[in-house]
């Protein structure tokens, strides 16, 4: 197998140049999908026969809760790649994922609480799903604090990547919490293995907004990573040239 692509991927300059061409299209697709999914969910999908209109919160809640976990997995994998192959770009990728993941986890918890009030009659319960999601938020905060605690970027990346890998244990706990424990939180809305139990009028906008939020994550992630690349490569010729040409 030819591994040149893997080494290229480790080159910040190559990464910056390639992604420059993607940003506009990615932004366009993200806006189209998010607007379609959310407007459909808010105004066109029928009300739920049990929950009424409060269920419309799931068009945000489900995608961001999924993303909060996917982002953590991606962060831990990037951290592991950085540890094993000493790839600078992977370390940067792990670092910039954390604040985005934290903001999605926060949003998932908050929208869940706001939905819980009219549905369960309470903002918060210490059930397994909610508690393990709160733990995810603290893992993100811990990761960011550890990352900021070292002056040396390499040491910071090493320490925080190990924390991310240890914290990975929380991800299956979040996923199976609704099966292992008797939680107030309902079981998974979507599964890959069984037929959807949701009506297509609700399922289609939900799937669109999930894809939209994943695109949004990719966009926000690339924007942060590109800025991080510039900062860390500020002594190189290509960054100097790029900045001088930027009017």
């Amino acid at each position: 197998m030819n591994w040149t692509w893997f080494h290229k991927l480790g080159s910040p300059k190559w990464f910056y140049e390639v992604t420059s061409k993607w940003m506009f299209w990615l932004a366009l697709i993200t806006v189209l999908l998010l607007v379609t999914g959310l407007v459909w969910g808010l105004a066109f999908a029928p009300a739920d026969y049990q929950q009424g209109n409060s269920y419309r919160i799931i068009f945000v809640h489900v995608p961001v809760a999924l993303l909060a976990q996917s982002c953590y997995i991606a962060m831990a994998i990037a951290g592991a790649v950085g540890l094993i192959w000493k790839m600078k770009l992977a370390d940067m990728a792990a670092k910039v994922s954390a604040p985005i993941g934290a903001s999605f986890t926060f949003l998932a918890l908050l929208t869940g609480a706001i939905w819980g009030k009219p549905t369960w009659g309470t903002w918060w319960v210490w059930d397994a799903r909610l508690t393990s999601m709160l733990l995810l938020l603290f893992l993100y905060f811990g990761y960011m604090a550890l990352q900021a605690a070292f002056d040396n970027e390499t040491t910071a990346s090493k320490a925080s990547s190990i924390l991310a890998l240890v914290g990975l244990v929380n991800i299956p706990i979040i996923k199976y919490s609704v099966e292992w424990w008797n939680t107030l939180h309902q079981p998974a809305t979507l599964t890959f293995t069984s037929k959807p139990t949701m009506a297509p009028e609700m399922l289609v906008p939900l799937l669109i907004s999930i894809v939209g939020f994943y695109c949004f994550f990719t966009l926000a992630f690339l924007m942060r990573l590109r800025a991080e690349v510039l900062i860390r490569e500020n002594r190189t010729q290509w960054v100097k040239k790029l900045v001088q040409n930027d009017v």
Partner: protein
Amino acid sequence: MYFDSVSSFLEMGGHGPYVWVCYAITVLVIAYNIWRPIRTRKVFIVDLKRRLRREARK
């Protein structure tokens, strides 16, 4: 459109405040995640330009 009037759309059968607050916060979180890297990039470019000018004078 599922709702028959703008007011029923805003009210959402009494769930309006909950739904709208969620969507408003979502918009804020999305906006923050876009604004933050743009700002980081701008600050970096201004700083580096200043440094390059200083180095050129030496």
